[in-house]
């Protein structure tokens, strides 16, 4: 049980830089017009 919580929490911490990188790639794609219309 302990390992379940701990391993998930460690996984969370590892997403930090990847999330920033992904967001910047998406922002670049929006800026250069590759993503023209994102619906909501």
């Amino acid at each position, binding site marked *: 049980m302990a390992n379940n919580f701990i391993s998930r*929490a460690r996984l969370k911490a590892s997403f930090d830089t990847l999330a920033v990188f992904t967001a910047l790639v998406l922002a670049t794609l929006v800026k250069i017009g590759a993503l023209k219309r994102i619906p909501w």
Partner: protein
Amino acid sequence: MATSIAIPQAAPVPWFRRALRVIPGILLLVSVGYLGKFLEQFIARYAKAHHLTIPNIEYVLWAILIGLVLANTIGVPELFRAGVNTYDFWLKTGIVLLGARFLLGDVLKLGAVSLVLVAIELALSITFMTWLGRRFKLSEKLISLLAVGSSICGVSAIIATQGAIEADDEDASLAIAAILALGAIALFSFPVIGHSLGMGDQSYGLWAGLAVDNTAEATAAGALYSDAAAKTAVLAKTTRNATIGFVVLGYALYWARRRQAGEIKNKARFLWQKFPKFVLGFLLISVLATVKVFDKTQLGNLANLSRWAFLLTFAGVGLRTNFAQLRKQGVRPLLVGAVGEVVIAAVTLGLVVGASRVIG
């Protein structure tokens, strides 16, 4: 004669296999999130067509509820778990993209107010949780973990502190379970309290960002209130997250002085390692939006990308909350956490009401 025993080594998993492993869970996040969005729109259309007055239930609540029901009835099969655990990746991606909806001036103004409130909240909650934990005779390291978890940012802070103060996995697990259970309760109770007190979007968002522990739950608690409240909640919570390194460093030095944790050789490096990098990403996108790198349509697209990322996060919040697992973690840490959270929520509410005169 000495004999050697060959221990089988697990072969490293290639990156494309790891990527493939998360796909089913991500598809589940998309399905649950989109079903939530569909239900909100479908019920609204149905009510309009039949001239019915039905309270609008936001997609946020639907996504969380569907996830909760799935996780606590049929459970999340192993096939989907790796992908469901990526909800934190979507949360951080969403927060960075949300930077496009803030001008730097607003970030600095609201961030400065948040920082003052965060400093007060940190001092009060660490002092109170330490006192309360000792009254309940919890172990000293468990008290440190609960204090950090409830004062800064829940699970991430606990896991960062566990490594720094060399706490047991068992203590970290108890603290994480308590924070997750209380986060789930806060998620549903905060909007009700906010509405009953007639709080404005900004005041409520500030309160949720200061008092709800996990970033995912704080964002969801804000989004359940309004879009504007979610924006403020994320900013206040991000400010709180930014202090994680300093508090963890303080605890590491405290335990090192008591010779129950290793020395910190390079404090600046330690702070950088613990600093949540998505805060820098959020600020960078906010700066780019402020200097008009993006036009109006592009800003709208970035905001929508952020909403999609949050939608997957909210589905994940429900899917990863398993009440049976949380119940098994023992009553005392949960009780200490619950009493502490109620006091922290009341104190931060008072702080926010005071601060709302400054921020308007």
